[in-house]
């Protein structure tokens, strides 16, 4: 096999806490002052991972914190030896770990470009040919001749990013390096990033930005607790990942938000809104919705006496307290007469077009018989909106438009 490839065969990596560390924590424990005794002495960061990556594949790796993504990447890059198993890498590896880490603080920007280039295996002559492009891209002005320690964090990121833009990688490894600079620069950077990925023969990206993964990769690995959970098309894997994460989270979200949820039925008599649920197209209740999915809200209203002119208000409130929509049942042409007892009401909101995020859905019942009306009952629930529809930006609302083109 002379073709460029990466083969990992049952690769594992264990981290050991050092003896000194252990001794310290035992002492701490004996003194009874500190609770720093770690639960495990051995952390299994990567466990028996087998994966083959061939030429032309751009692989995104996703997963929660501590899943072993970075460890795997480092082993492939040759920065670390696996505890067991074998890694075979055919081809020249360029790797970009967290931006700015490789910069030498005492040296000027220009010198850093040369050093970095040489580390990546480019000759000084070749770099000299390209250096003007790099400096132009970084756009640092006279600062390029000053030591990196005089740079602001944004400037460091610019320099570090400009340096990787001009390598011609065979195997490119990128760890979380995608959001840098101000508005102007980050647009330039992400456009460039796509270019580089297109040039690289094998690209491996670790990122929490699922949009970027879907944008740039044609294969996706999902890691959890040191193992590969799923391997396949980025669209399917990110979707499955989010769904799982979200089902795990669903209960959590409610618990987290509990303190903020209201359930008022304290008013005069016992009007109450009961069991608000979010139903999808199949009529199944869930908390997690994708943009574009049909949403129906169902709830039960209990009235101790008949109500001639009830008015409901339904609000979707973002986690940063922006009220995205407010619907009054009266304005939507719904003026029912509520009889004594329980009545079930459905609200069809059509396809969800809210941006991604957590929303507090508040429902209020007021009595509109005499003017203003007092709040008789209120209930709120949490809904989470995810966005596979368009993961690159997150507006408050996706509008449908009637376009006129001529």
């Amino acid at each position: 096999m002379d073709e460029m490839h990466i083969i990992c065969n049952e690769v594992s990596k264990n981290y050991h806490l050092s003896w000194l560390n252990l001794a310290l924590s035992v002492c701490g424990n004996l003194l009874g002052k500190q609770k720093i005794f770690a639960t495990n002495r051995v952390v299994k960061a990567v466990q028996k991972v087998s994966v083959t990556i061939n030429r032309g594949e751009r692989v995104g790796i996703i997963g929660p914190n501590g899943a072993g993504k970075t460890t795997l990447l480092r082993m492939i890059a040759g920065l670390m030896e696996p505890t067991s198993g074998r890694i075979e890498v055919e081809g020249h590896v360029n790797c970009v770990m967290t931006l700015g880490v490789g910069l030498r603080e005492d040296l000027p920007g220009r010198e850093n470009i040369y050093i970095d280039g040489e580390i990546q295996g480019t000759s000084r002559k070749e770099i000299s040919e390209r250096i003007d492009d790099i400096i132009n891209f970084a756009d640092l002005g006279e600062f390029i001749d000053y030591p990196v320690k005089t740079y602001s964090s944004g400037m460091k990121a610019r320099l570090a990013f400009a340096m990787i833009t001009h390598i011609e990688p065979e195997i490119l490894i990128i760890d979380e390096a995608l959001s840098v600079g101000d508005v102007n620069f980050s647009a330039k950077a992400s456009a460039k990033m796509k270019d580089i990925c297109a040039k690289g023969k094998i690209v491996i990206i670790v990122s929490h930005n699922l949009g970027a993964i879907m944008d740039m990769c044609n294969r996706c690995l999902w890691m959890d607790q040191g193992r590969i959970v799923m391997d396949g098309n980025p669209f399917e894997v990110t979707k499955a990942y989010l769904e799982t994460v979200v089902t795990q989270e669903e209960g959590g979200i409610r618990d987290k938000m509990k303190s903020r949820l209201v359930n008022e039925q304290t008013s005069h008599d016992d009007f109450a809104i009961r069991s608000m649920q979010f139903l999808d197209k199949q009529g199944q209740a869930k908390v997690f919705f994708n943009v574009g999915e049909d949403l129906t809200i169902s709830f039960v209203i209990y009235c101790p006496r008949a109500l001639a002119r009830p008015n409901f208000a339904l609000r979707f409130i973002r986690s940063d307290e922006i009220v995205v929509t407010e619907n009054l049942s009266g304005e939507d042409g719904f003026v029912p007469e509520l009889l004594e007892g329980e009545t079930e009401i459905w609200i069809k909101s059509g396809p969800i077009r809210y941006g991604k995020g957590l929303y507090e859905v508040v429902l209020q019942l007021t009595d509109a018989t005499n003017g203003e009306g007092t709040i008789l009952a209120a209930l709120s629930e949490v809904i989470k909106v995810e966005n596979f529809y368009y993961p690159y930006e997150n507006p408050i609302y996706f509008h449908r438009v009637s376009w006129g083109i001529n």
Partner: protein
Amino acid sequence: MTAAIQVKNLTYDYRLLKNPRELLGAVYRGGGRRYRALADVNFEVARGETLAVIGANGAGKSTLLKVLAGVLPNYQGMVEVKGRHSAILEVSTSFARLLTGRQNIRRHLFMQGHSKTEIARLEPEIIEFSELGQVIDHRLITYSNGMKAKLAFATITSAVNEILFIDELLVVGDEYFQGKSYRRIKEICSTGRTVIIASHNLSYSERLCQRAIWLDKGRVQKIGPTHEIWRSYFEHYKGVFDNIYPKEFGFIDDIKLQVANGTMKINSTIVRLKPTADLHYQLAIHDIDRGLMAALMNTSWDKIRIPAGLGPLEVRAEIPVPSGLEYGLIGGVLVRGSGAIPGSEIQDAWGWDNSKQVYVELPQVERKQGYVSIPMEWMKCT
């Protein structure tokens, strides 16, 4: 009203040294080259006021906050900060890497002068806010940047002094954490504390600040109400955001806005340079007051294509005015390729082709509580 912060003729120079020899020379002769990060900055912040500091990368925002917070002592001019302050600047500055999260919390509170009982009361609250769980007893060196930032935010904001400095880069985390952070900062602002936020982007912190100061290369360009400053900022940078993409299949010549009867009509002139059946147009409206993308629309979502051909085209889009939108940015982007169609597989061949951004001011319309209004269908089930 008394000024909580007074800055007069503040100038800050970083000493620039190309090599150690220059360092020797500088020490010896007291000379050396300097870079002026802040030049003759003057402003006052009243007690209880919130101020945003805006500007491009390297404008001196972080330097200004560091000077105010007392991290950089060798400034020229007069800086008076009346009262005790808390600051969220760089995480690495105030937390010890070899201590655990919990120890760092205690250490920070102790250094802020809290009593033992108070620390015991605040600690569980901070740990809960930071969402670190078990990890709180691990050492800081094992933390990811996100975890460190969460810990720093939770700890510092749990017991804030009269004055707070925030470098916004550090407000991080998932949506839930961000929402929580936002509410906490809002709460701090509303309790009469003086807050200065260095804002690195158009984002939610603008909603919290009445006034803004715009720094450009270390100089104060303008001080005033936040939205006015943003307007001048975008006028100044007009054209910088345009044409950042290749301009291969076409470009956007002009974007115009008309507002009538609560709808906004956006007329764009597109010039097609190469015939392709795969060209789409996307419009985004940013709300400057709220620092958010208010609306996004794309021809492909409405199953419409830009007709293949050459030459200019007029594209009209109409949407109801988002309630309360007064100062906005309208950005148009040409998108090439079918990958932009929702639900379709993401394909290799798609990308931005050209962009343009315009600043608009909208006449005030009746303000509703909901940001957008969409009718819903209500029904009674029997």
